[in-house]
């Protein structure tokens, strides 16, 4: 079988880059004078001004508390059950009145895939993913958030995606 060579037809005679060049130069020069889109990060953050995070942003978790400052969690065990990354550790306890509460509630934020299922599944609206992104730490261990830490977070919580209102209107 003969070898078939595909010959690319390069445009040679019909080509002029003169106008395209001048047009391009005009475009770049006009962009020189246009307002810039850079966020000056440490000074400006996405919480204020021109930039804002979506209310559906799913960041590190936050546990909501009741009026007495106790976690709303009733240790039903749904969130560790649904968690696809298996990052929630929950040990339930029960007080003398029969109220269930978490003895241990830890979220490993390194394992977490930020799917937001825990917030969706929570019957008490206790655990939430947060609208937040500044999470730097010096030790890996610090990324396992315990209950106290989850309750102490103050950032806004995610609204998640509502199927009945897909555009968030």
């Amino acid at each position, binding site marked *: 079988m003969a070898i078939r060579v595909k010959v690319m037809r*390069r445009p040679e005679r019909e*080509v002029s880059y003169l106008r*395209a060049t001048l047009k391009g130069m005009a475009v*770049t020069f006009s*962009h020189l004078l246009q307002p810039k889109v850079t966020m000056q990060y440490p000074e400006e953050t996405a919480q204020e001004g021109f930039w804002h995070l979506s209310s559906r942003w799913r960041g590190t978790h936050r546990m909501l508390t009741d009026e007495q400052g106790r976690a709303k969690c009733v240790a039903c065990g749904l969130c560790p059950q649904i968690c696809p990354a298996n990052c929630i550790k929950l040990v339930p306890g029960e007080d003398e009145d029969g109220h269930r509460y978490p003895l241990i509630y830890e979220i490993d934020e390194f394992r977490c895939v930020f799917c937001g299922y825990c917030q969706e599944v929570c019957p008490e609206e206790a655990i939430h993913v947060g609208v937040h992104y500044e999470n730097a730490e010096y030790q890996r261990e610090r990324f396992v958030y315990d209950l106290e830490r989850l309750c102490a977070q103050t950032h806004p919580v995610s609204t998640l995606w509502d199927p009945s209102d897909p555009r968030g209107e």
Partner: protein
Amino acid sequence: MTPELKGLLLVSAIKVLLVFVALLVGVLVVIWVERRGAGFMQDRLGPNRVGPLGLLQNVADGLKNLVKEEVVPARADRVIFYLAPLMSFVTALILFAVIPFGAPLPPFDVTLPLLGRVVHEGPIPLMVADLPVGFLFIIAISSVAVYGITLAGWASNSKYSLLGGLRASAQMISYELALGSSLIVVLLLAGNVMLSEIVAAQQRMVWFVFAATLAYLMLHIAAFAETNRLPFDLPEAEAELVAGYHAEYSAMKYAMFPLSEYVALITMSAFITTLFFGGWDIPFTAWDEQAAATWSLGAVLRTSMTALVFLGKTFFFVWVFVWVRWTLPRFRYDQLMFLGWKVLLPTALAYIVVMATAVLVLERWGIAQDWKYGLILFLVNVPLVAAVVFGLDRRRVLAGTQRRVPMEG
């Protein structure tokens, strides 16, 4: 030592130091301009953290490069591998030695402590070396610059580097021809190869950009290829060849290549300024052209003003280089060769014939070399430029750049 020799050495040493420091500082500024300019053209800010407006970013980068680890690839040709960055850096630096950057200073005859009597007879030209072959020196040394790049590619023992080096040699040699032959017209007009004389000729007539417009356009295009900048940066071609000829270089040896590229950029801009835009000449005035015989405030002011004007013109061309770099995509290799050999070179040769005829005719008619002479040559140039632009363009647009027509329905 005679006082004259002492004077010559002293003046030369000061000038060398001045040019060297000015070039290195200029490189830092130009890289800053390039990065901030790139940022602004892409609707972002560019480096603005280190120092005021980010001006010290390059100092920080230079320090980083100085303390980084040097890596030499296995089986590289060590001697040439170390020599290549030096070759491209030194050739880029040495080019500036013959470019006049200001009006001459008056002569002096003083007695200094330690040195004794120091004499400089005749005006002091503001260039490191007023070579009688200044123009040819630039052409010669700028073709040596290709060795640094080619040898860097060859010595690295890497296929990408070698391809980059080969491209560099092919490209720079073919554009060297177009560059050299387009500049013959300048020599015809000035009748001299000394750059100071070329500047003087432009002060007598008009700037050569008007008297030899086409030569200027060709020099500018060839200058992109000579300095290996976009749209002709095929030796680097980071999309195809990783980083081309300097893919294997690291730390300060690597930094030498961008450094020499920017020095060459400044020198090319200065060269274009000198040959076509009157060098240090201040337009529409004659007071900057009378040589001062004695030291006075006026003489110093005159020299510094002309030097500033020269700086401004040079900077304008540096800016054009930066502007073009962040606008145009890279040429394909066959397009590059097509433009060099089939467009620029024949055009340059035909242009030489036309301009030589024009110069000869003007000489026959006995027209003095003043602004009228320049005007006549300008009128000769206008149809030539129009013809070349028409020949290149003819209302043709690169396929794919037409506005898209929305589909029916």
